[in-house]
């Protein structure tokens, strides 16, 4: 028995099969184990088709596994229905997407406030909290701007502020630098490191080794299986 905190993400024997039992059957995950500790900055790296999108969907509670178990901050995801998973996403997970996914008609502040409405936070507190979150990502002076009036890097910062607003234990970033130039990408990654230092758990999903190397730990996905970093397909073949 250890006195360490239980892992924020605990995955065992996770399998995902699409179109099971049909000729179009695809096995996306072949029994994956993964533990992510609180406050860790982990990168899941892999080429397209390796199953990392499936991994991301499962980690984000957007999808349910075919087999295996996933405990998200102590909650067994398999027991939840669509509403339950939505509630779990609300409380435990902040998403950062490659394409930012901001609502174009709303200001940066309104975009950041969005999850607070679903969390039932009183209107009076929402503005204050959203302004604080925008401050954390260095955009206090852009609160009234719409996404079209912001640069790509600024838009991604707004998205990160939105992901952080409910103080979720897990921050899930899917190719967060994919739509940014490399210098802006570096800034975003630096921001993630800062968040890690503040105690957030960050899971970064990318195909780019340069991006992945900013993380504390790298795991590699290949053909639906997860391997520690340093592993190459050639080694297996040998």
């Amino acid at each position: 028995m250890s006195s360490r905190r239980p892992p924020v993400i605990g995955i065992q024997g996770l399998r995902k099969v699409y179109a099971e039992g049909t000729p179009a059957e695809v096995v996306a995950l072949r029994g994956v184990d993964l533990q992510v500790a609180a406050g860790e900055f982990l990168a899941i790296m892999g080429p397209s088709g390796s199953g990392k999108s499936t991994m991301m969907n499962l980690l984000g509670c957007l999808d349910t596994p075919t087999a295996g178990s996933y405990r998200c901050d102590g909650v067994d995801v398999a027991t939840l229905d669509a509403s339950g998973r939505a509630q779990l996403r609300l409380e435990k997970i902040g998403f950062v997407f490659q394409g930012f996914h901001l609502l174009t008609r709303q200001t940066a502040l309104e975009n950041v406030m969005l999850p607070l409405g679903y969390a039932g936070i009183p209107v009076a507190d929402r503005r204050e909290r959203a302004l604080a979150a925008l401050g954390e990502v260095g955009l206090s002076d852009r609160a009234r701007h719409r996404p079209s009036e912001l640069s790509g890097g600024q838009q991604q910062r707004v998205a990160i502020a939105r992901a952080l607003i409910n103080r979720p234990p897990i921050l899930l970033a899917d190719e967060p630098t994919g739509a940014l130039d490399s210098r802006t990408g570096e800034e975003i990654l630096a921001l993630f490191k800062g968040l890690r230092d503040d105690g957030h758990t960050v899971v970064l999903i990318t195909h780019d080794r340069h991006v992945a190397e900013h993380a504390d730990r790298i795991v590699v996905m290949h053909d639906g299986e997860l391997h520690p970093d340093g592993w190459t397909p050639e080694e297996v073949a040998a």
Partner: protein
Amino acid sequence: MKPTDILWTALGALRGNWLRSVLTALGVIIGIAAVIVMVSVGQGTQAELDRVIQNLGSNRIDIGSNFSRRGGVRGGAGSVFSLRSDDVDRLRESIPEIEFISGVVQGNAQLINAEQNWQTRWQGVEDDFFRINDWRLAEGEWIDEAAHAGARTQAMIGQTVREQLFGDLDPVGATIRVGRVPFTVSGVLAPKGQSNWGQDQDDVVFVPLETARRRLLGQVNLPPGTVMQIVVGVGRADDMEYAEARITEVLREGRRTAPGADDDFTVRNLSQIVSTRTQTTRLMSLLLGAVATISLIVGGIGIMNIMLVSVTERIREIGLRMAVGAGPRAIQQQFLAEAMLISLGGGLIGIVLGIGGSIAMGHFTTLPVQLNLQVIGLATAFSVATGLFFGFYPARKAARLDPIEALRHQG
């Protein structure tokens, strides 16, 4: 999400596409406006019907002389008066359902009071007449029993006659001449206003039946005891049909009319005539009702159509909302709220247009119009119901989207 959050989110989405929202609401706008005009006209008609029946005397049956056949020459209705005061007595004695009954004779005459004169209609009536027709006394007294029995020259005048002959002066006890015969004004009747046919009911002078027959009809050569019309008031509305049938029976017996032979009198139930007349208006209401129903259905389908388009257009937004923690319920509520706001907004515009339309209709047509608050409540409820009903399917479709596919959706 709190209801206010849902409403604000929905309002924001609609404002972003306000022209489309207004166009979508058009069907509901027309439907609700039609409902309001329809109900206003319907209610106005009903109110007018009630008023007319009230004015006529609610349970009134009129008996008139039928045209007669003489050697193939057919006179118009009433060209020969076949009713007598004997008939009045016989009916009163034979039919207990009759509460009031009065023979009537009438004509036109010049009324004169000092320098004022006025051409009007006079009616010779019995005391019961005033009960049947619900006349009220404004000033003075009713013509008393003795005056009726003794054929005295007393008169009751209507408000119009009073204004024309007396102006501001006190008419009670004054002497007026009807044609060449002097009468004492016994009382003034409370005004009744225009009848359903646009006739001024207050432009009239009433005198005792027998007086009229002897003094005013003198120059017309009629058999003694003739009445031109018999007016009957039935005690209970339920007895109307029975009383009508009994009146025909009793009159035929009294005349020894052979079975199958034509009557020389007509029996009419006046409230039936009025309701026949209002059937045109009812038909109009029905047509408007059909327009309203169809508009609401078409409007509702329009809302459903646009909501389905909206769900497709905003798949990525829905995906994002789901990712940040919106459950199926919250998504469904949001789209339902949008559909409801469109139709409620349309309903409110429709209410304004409907009220305007009803007022215009009352102004430019002869249709009676009556607005009421219930209609507005009803219209609001209808529009909300339309939005809920037709918004349900698109909202459910949005709520059932797979968040992964919604997030990945291109376009």
